[in-house]
């Protein structure tokens, strides 16, 4: 599936949830079932320090594609990072860097992209793109 196909899939999961709490329940459930980050990578080096929630993001480069792992100590930030991982994992650095993450707006999470929000979604996206840039520089140029 392309990045956009995956975004559409997530949007369709949220489409019929009109109530805010139902939307959050969906995010929380994703956070709870999130596979997380392998214990050995859950280090300060991979920590994105938001104001209140801790989020770890780790990535590996295999056969030209980037594979992410993400985890948080809060269920909501955990749900958000798991969606980002789901959408961006398994794609080339170029695909990741070219991706426009419109699902955030479409599922009503745009407010979380503001730099002042404490869950640090913006930092998560930035960090994931940084990995793509780094792998591209290291392996592809």
């Amino acid at each position, binding site marked *: 599936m392309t990045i956009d196909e995956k975004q559409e899939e997530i949007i369709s999961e949220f489409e019929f949830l009109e109530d*805010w*709490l139902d939307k*959050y*329940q969906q995010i*929380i459930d994703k956070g*709870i079932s999130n596979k997380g980050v392998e214990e050995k990578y859950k280090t300060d080096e991979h920590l994105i320090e938001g*104001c*209140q*929630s801790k989020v770890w993001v780790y990535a590996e480069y295999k056969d030209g594609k980037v594979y992410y792992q993400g985890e948080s*100590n*809060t*269920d*909501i*930030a955990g749900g958000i990072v798991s969606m980002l991982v789901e959408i961006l994992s398994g794609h080339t650095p170029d695909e990741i860097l070219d991706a426009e993450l419109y699902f955030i707006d479409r599922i009503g999470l745009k407010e979380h992209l503001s730099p002042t929000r*404490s*869950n640090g979604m913006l930092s998560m996206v930035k960090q994931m793109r940084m990995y793509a840039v780094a792998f591209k520089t290291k392996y592809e140029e």
Partner: protein
Amino acid sequence: MAIDIQKIRSDFPILERKIYNKPLVYFDNAATTQKPQCVVNTIVNNYYNCNANIHRGVHFLSQQSTEAHENARKTVQNFIGAKNSNEIIFTRGTTEAINLVAHSFGISQCNDGDEIIVTQMEHHSNIVPWQLLQQIKDIKLRVIPFDEKGVLQIDQLEKLINKKTKLIAVTHVSNALGTVNPIEKIIKIAHSQDIPVLVDGAQSAPHTPINVQDLDVDFYAFSGHKVYGPTGIGVLYGKEKWLEKIPPYQGGGEMIQNVSFEKTTFNELPFKFEAGTPDYIGSTALAAALNYVSEIGMQNIADYEHELLRYATDKLTQIDGLRIIGESPQKSGLISFLVGQIHPYDMGTILDKLGIAVRTGHHCAEPVMKAFNIDGTIRASFAIYNTKEEIDILASGIERAAKMFRK
């Protein structure tokens, strides 16, 4: 005297707002309180009708503006029972007031090796200014600990005091735990050894009557915005003898008598500590706020908020898995709590979606969180316009949110 809460609520336009289509339940009052119409009107009226820079103006508006600012100082003086209005210094808030003392008292009264005593439950703004002083003077910070209920272990104080103790700087009310500290006792103990005391009144001035002369406190600081006034204005009270003794904090206009490149002489109190154009609009709006609460009566406010605290404590402790952080028998109107393993951020986010504004996190008191071995709490803090019905909404909101997370 019974107070008319509905009448009071109608004085605060923001309380009519809907948040995500739900009526706003505002329980973040320890961070800042909402403003009554009279405070907003004062700001608007002053800018529309009475705006001119104060002091030394020959023109009518300047004199009127100066009078309003100096009257505001007298209002503050009366509000906290100070002896003279020149003991009232306008600052940007509690933080600036403490920084002023840490700097001016610190550089003039402390020598290398001296000690300052604080408590384990200080807000960062009563820790960091002293650490900045440590970059100038080789002073030591000694800390009065609290017990598992969040009660200050006052018996430790006498052990911490020694010949090198220069100042005791304590919070009156903990913003993270709600604990009311026995500052009368602390001041008596300190004065018996000739040690001055600074009280951080950010969480007490809005909630209980304060009389600095009865307390015999040497410095008392509070913020305007937490007592229904505007942001950016606060107060440092200092006994005249101390304010005379310590040097200015910042230099500029207003605070000088004569300036030459060889020598500058400083203005008298309180102007010595008010460099630059003061927030004269803010000061008059603060006075409006203080008049507003004085009219309701600070004791009435204290009694009513206590009733809210009792009600909320009863209600919240019935919730499965909820534990209160800070169980001092002497508490102000705020409750810090956790529910099961739910992260405060998660709980706060869902409560927000229900229209309930609480604060989550470490509340700028990381040493408190460390003592309880937690990352943070959810804090509901009350003000004069809150109601028991709102506490019911909070309680059912917590129960509803709790069901959404993993246990």
